[in-house]
């Protein structure tokens, strides 16, 4: 057993932590305004959904990487080690598509996580509580809950839009900044 020069992705870890903090701060604000949750509660939910989608992204990447075609892996390695494009992949197509897919799957995963959280505990105040009178009328309840789902979806869309925008901006600035070189 030897660790001669095990490379640690310290920059990646630092950046990911930073982006998580930014995303949580932004999304917690949006959740607080949209759902009227308490501030600690909004931060907790923002943290939970962002962590869940981040972890899912890692698991997907780590599981799929061995299956990638060679030129895709080269492109990934080139990006990771050198922040460069490599090979004949058309970046102007691949990058927007990848960003869009990531955004959509993040949104989907966060909705899923939020739904799971609702199941795991009753989330005092995150969705408007139904009064017993409303529960009695099945149709009204269904209408109401579909409204809740739509509201939840739109709120998350908004929250993610803001946080993705902020992170994209930070990435662009970092990409331009010369202090890394």
């Amino acid at each position, binding site marked *: 057993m*030897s660790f001669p020069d095990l*490379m640690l*992705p310290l920059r990646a870890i630092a950046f990911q932590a930073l982006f998580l903090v930014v995303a949580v701060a932004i999304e917690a604000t949006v959740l607080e305004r949209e759902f009227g949750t308490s501030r600690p509660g909004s931060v*907790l939910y923002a943290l*939970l959904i962002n962590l869940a989608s981040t972890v899912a992204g890692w698991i997907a990447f*780590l599981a799929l990487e061995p299956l990638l075609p060679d030129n895709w892996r080269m492109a990934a390695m080139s990006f*990771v080690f050198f922040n*460069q494009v490599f090979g004949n992949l058309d970046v102007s197509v691949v990058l927007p598509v990848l960003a869009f897919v990531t955004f959509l799957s993040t949104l989907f995963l966060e909705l899923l996580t939020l739904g799971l959280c609702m199941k795991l505990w009753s989330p005092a105040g995150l969705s408007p509580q139904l009064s017993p009178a409303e529960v009695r009328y099945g149709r009204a309840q269904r209408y109401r809950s579909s409204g809740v789902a739509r509201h939840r979806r739109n709120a998350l869309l908004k929250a993610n839009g803001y946080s993705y925008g902020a992170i994209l901006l930070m990435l662009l600035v970092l990409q331009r900044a010369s202090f890394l070189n």
Partner: protein
Amino acid sequence: MKALLQSFWQSLWGALRPASAYSWQTALWMSLLAWLLAQLARSPEQVQSPISVHGILTSLSWMFLILAVGWLTLERPLKLLGINFGPWLTGALVCLFLFVRRDYSFPRTALVTWPLISAAIAAVPEFIDIESGFSIPRGLRVRQNIVLMLLVNLLLTSWITFSFRLNDWLLRYPGLRGEAFSQSFFLMPRDRDEEDFSRGITIVREMERQLGSNVSGQTQSQVERWLLDNQTDPLIFRDLVMNTLAAQRAETATGRPLPRPKDDRFWQLETLVSEPAYQVELRARWIGPRANEAGHLVKHTCKVDFGSNLRATVSCPNDMIVITDPKNDPIPVRRAPALDSLETSPTL
């Protein structure tokens, strides 16, 4: 002095004396006892299998130690910044016990599972009920904390796995190590040493050997023919060099043979010939994923002389040179890397 020792002993004994039959101190003493017994049961001739008396006693000793540490950190949490790190200590012991042994060791598995096992250990007390034994925690805060802790530890596991993946890439494509990582958003920049250029150096050394064995003792026209062939068909020459290297690797590998590097096709082998009377420059250029347009380059200049008998002799008096960047100064290679220099790379 005596008083000092006495008071030290008293406080030590006070801390380690079992307060009751059910206490972490008891577990610690049991662990120590099992370890002592295991030492007595050790027999040097016998194969150390986990089913021997020694193996069983050692395992028991580990389990009691884990129990003791887990119990202790539950009673007196190791708080730092409001977080209890006790479960991670217990988790580290569990991982060491499960995956790191003298005869078969999986430090990689141990590291990857450490956060998950620790999270499980941290969650266990919440699931234990004094009366019914097992219960799903009812409190909202408790549930939220368990989920949060699980997610954070999954993220840690992802980072650790990703680190190993990075190092696997560097092992499979050793030429990557010769490039600068200063632009990376993932890694810290580091200084490269000869070890990092060892792949290119090994290739050029093999080119040199091929030159020596194919050219020495030949006539001038045969030498010219060989050099011309290499220039017109560099890919054939590359295949020859790479296959020879792979065969050498397989031969010299001690123990578990390492997989063959996959970066063969990312090396461009060049043979430049110039007057006077054959200066042969052997070059290996990295054309795989790289930091700059021109990848790093290892080169060695050799001289082919024809003596009085008109037969070729090869000599390479100068240092081998590494060029990392056209802007930077070339780096002379001082020492010969061992053939198995790649074997020292991380192989967890």
